[in-house]
């Protein structure tokens, strides 16, 4: 690992001020530290945001669940409030990686990183999330812009993620057997306003599968999905799963999700 300057920010303002194009925020460190150790990334400044209490914790109102950016996966998984309001979201957190990762990794880090195989981005899409940063609010469908890319600016900090509580929802994932990231993860959510099907793992970035959502809004049952065609174009292919298999798993896991709703 190359040497770097370590800063522990006391508040969001200070953290934002310290940030540059050659810095990273340190939340759980579950992505940043391994990439530094492997020599894949190096930064001049590491800005620790773990001590900023204001951006931690879970709040539930009548219609939304708001989770502070540095809230750990384990906290979401174990939260009675989340389990009650959006059980599928707690279950998603419970299924991330392994206990070590869940004990350190954070929701803000996960979303900022936008790994194409990460779980939380599908929740953001399915649950019409609003990403609160230190200077604006961004709708989830405008937030994830590409592979490992978001609309965040370099000094911009996620403070919280606000999820809409759906009528029904379920997240079903085919985990990569090695890393436990999603080979395919499908988040189906039925809101008063409509249906979203957030799909992760399958393409270069998370997306809302409009075909599946369309079929489900006509008939919210797993059989409605049977006739939806999923093209392999743009679908990832690697040693763990070919594009064809992944495309089929989108359907298989969407069905599982609908059945579990």
């Amino acid at each position, binding site marked *: 690992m190359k040497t770097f300057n370590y800063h522990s920010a006391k508040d969001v303002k200070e953290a934002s001020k310290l940030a540059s194009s050659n810095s990273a925020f340190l939340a759980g460190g579950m992505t940043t530290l391994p990439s530094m150790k*492997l020599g894949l990334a190096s930064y001049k400044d590491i800005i620790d945001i773990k001590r900023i209490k204001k951006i931690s914790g879970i709040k539930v109102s009548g219609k939304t669940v708001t989770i502070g950016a540095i809230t750990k996966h384990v906290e979401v998984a174990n939260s009675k409030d989340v389990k009650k309001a959006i059980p599928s979201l707690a279950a998603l957190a419970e299924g991330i990686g392994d206990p070590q990762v869940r004990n350190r990794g954070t929701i803000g880090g996960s979303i900022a990183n936008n790994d194409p195989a990460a779980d939380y981005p599908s929740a953001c899409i399915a649950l019409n999330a609003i990403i609160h940063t230190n200077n604006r609010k961004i709708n989830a469908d405008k937030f994830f812009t590409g592979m490992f890319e978001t609309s965040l600016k370099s000094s911009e900090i996620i403070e919280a993620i606000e999820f809409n509580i759906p009528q029904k929802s379920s997240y079903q994932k*085919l985990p990569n057997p*090695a*890393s436990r990231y999603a080979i395919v993860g499908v988040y189906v959510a039925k809101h008063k306003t409509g249906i979203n099907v957030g799909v992760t793992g399958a393409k270069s970035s998370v997306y809302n599968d409009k075909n599946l959502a369309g079929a489900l809004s006509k008939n919210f049952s797993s059989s409605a999905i049977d006739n939806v065609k999923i093209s392999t174009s743009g679908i990832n292919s690697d*040693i*763990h*799963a070919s594009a064809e*298999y992944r495309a089929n798993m989108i359907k*298989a896991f969407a069905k599982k999700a609908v059945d579990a709703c």
Partner: protein
Amino acid sequence: MASLVGSRVERKEDKRFLTGKGRYTSDINIANQTYAIFIRSPHARAKIKKIDTSKALKSSGVVDILTGEHIAKDKIGGLIAGWAIRSEDGSEMKCPANPPLAKDSVNFVGDPVAVVFAETLDEAKAAAELVKVDYKVLKAVANLSDAMNSEAIHDGIEKNLCYDWLLGDRQKVKEAFDKADKIIKLDIINNRLIPNAMEPRACVIDYNTASEEITCYTTSQNPHLSRLIMSAFGGVAPENKLRVVAPDVGGGFGSKINLYNEEIVCSWASKKIERPIKWVAERTESFLTDTHGRDHITHAELAVTNDGKFLGFKNETIANLGAYARVFGTVTPTYLFGPCATGVYIMPAAYSNVKAVYTNTAPVDAYRGAGRPEATYTIERIVDKAAMELGIDPIEIRMKNFPTEFPFKQTLVHQVDSGDYIAGLNKAKEMADYDGFAARKKESESRGKLRGIGVTSYFEACGIAPSPVVMMLGCGVGLWESAEVRFNPTGQVTVYTGSHSHGQSHQTTFAQIAADELGVPIENIDVVHGDTDKGTFGMGTYGSRSLTVGGIAIVNACKKIVNKGKKIAAKMLEENPDDVDFKNGEFVVTKSNKKKTIGEVAFASYLPGVRDEVKSPLPEGEEPGLIESSFFDPSNFSFPAGSHICEVEIDPETGRVKLDKYTAVDDFGTIVNPLIVEGQVHGGLAQGIGQALCENAQYDESGQLITASYMDYTMPRADDLPDFNLGFTCTKATTNPLGVKGCGEAGTIAATPTVMNAVINALGGKEISLPATAEKVWNACKELKKSNAKAA
């Protein structure tokens, strides 16, 4: 005193391992040490045109940078193959030179070409980035199936062929096949595995400039052998100036049998730079450079009668050696594989033909089970296929072909001294509730799932073994073990063993044996191993041989102690030695009811006299002290055996396989410590299941390892495994006084075919290759659905 052999004694090792107090190689730091970073080839095959270290040498903290030129100039020898194998045509095997640092050419990604020594690890890494190696990249031979038709990667080794070996009789097999009702044919790819010891390899070298002694702390399964090779072949230092210590070692599974480039290079360099050196592999280096396992392509055929009797067997195998032939690399696919190819069955005729070839991949060597898992996989898969094609129950077909009398002369090499295969399979059948399978299958089907059951019966030849036999077969050394048992004057005992423990719990098992032999409480017995300066020699821990060979040396040394003790006790008791019995730690003369404890005898042996009188407890001519040593060379291999049965449930929508039930019934002869043996079985099963369901090392066409991290190389995890249902039967080994057979590899040997037989059973006999990953199984399910629809 109750016998300790057979009881669940808690491990003496647990406290230090479970509280983080183990002392591993990387825990060792020597004052003034430098840090080594190896510069490795990023190419699978290339010529080295030039290495420019000038810029790196000026980098901060750099002590020295050494290359293949330096090591060649100092005439340091390279790595060697430990077994010489002859081809069917009588020619000797062909092995390339494997210098510790490549000088002219590199042959796999990770092949080391230079090494940087610096004051800190970061400085070493920074300097390593400045070393410029100019390569002429050549087309790599990465694919095993094409290797024999590709350009030779080593000069003079045509077709990349190390040997083309035959065991058995082609003519007899032909005759048997001519008589058969049916020939069952099977093509198998035995997938390549990466051993993944929890502790990465490491070495710490301390050269003493005054005594000129090198101490090499290293992560080895056999420090004595490492010293021998480093001295005799490497020429690093004479044996008396080279001490090799393997302290706590966090797993090896065969990958730490070998002496590696880094140990030779750092030992040599420490003397050259006159500084201690520390090197610890990063996980990526482990993936790239630890020896890998398995990697065979096999075509097998089994000749059968319509009622399921086996008439003959043959296999044609291509085995991948990787870039170089290492210590057990050449014997693993031959004498550790071929003799077990006919499995636990009466097989009137058989042959095993193996072509071992070089490729531009990491060297392949022994991995837990070494050869026997590959053999068992082949025979147990083809036996299942035969059962299916003949419409016979898989248990019935096995029972039909089991030997019933022991000793059993197995077809190709072994004389199996003892066993009862029928009892083992019957017990497994009962424990697994084999008869209840149909109902469970139905229940799964009601939920839209497929259920399959798999059976395997195996035997293995381990406890390797009689030196004259292995040396006749080409082994470069004898495979005995030795021990020294030392009483302290105050009655505690130190047992020195040449067998190394890197997870096997020798400190407990060996203490149990010695406690029983000497009648000394186990708390008072310490087992010392892993240091060439402490105690006797050993040839290493592998092939489930520590207890069956090393343990017996301890028993025999203890017996010598008791014999000497008897003579001393007789003198002390003023009785005839023939009247002295030894029981529970006491020398007893029954008729006069006199006794001395072994502690009293030990004390007297070291303090042989009394005040005011010239009187010795030692008989005339007997030396003081109570220390004995013994070398044990068994008269035969040992032959653990057993039957395993498992059930899987498959989700046809996703192809995911859930291992639902696993029953293992093993015959390890006498079991010294059931707790430890169960642990060995559990670990072995996990590895065998890993091979069946998830592990798979893959190289791309250019020879890049694409599974070089845990993000891509799938290890089995606890939640992939069911609770194991273990049972034991016991027929004692007749070739050692304890009746022990060895247990370290059995789980790995049996589990892979058991699981695959179950998966293929669930798929209605549809063959799929190892490992049964979700996508492969999903594809097979789709085809199954299609063919079922057609049939309906």
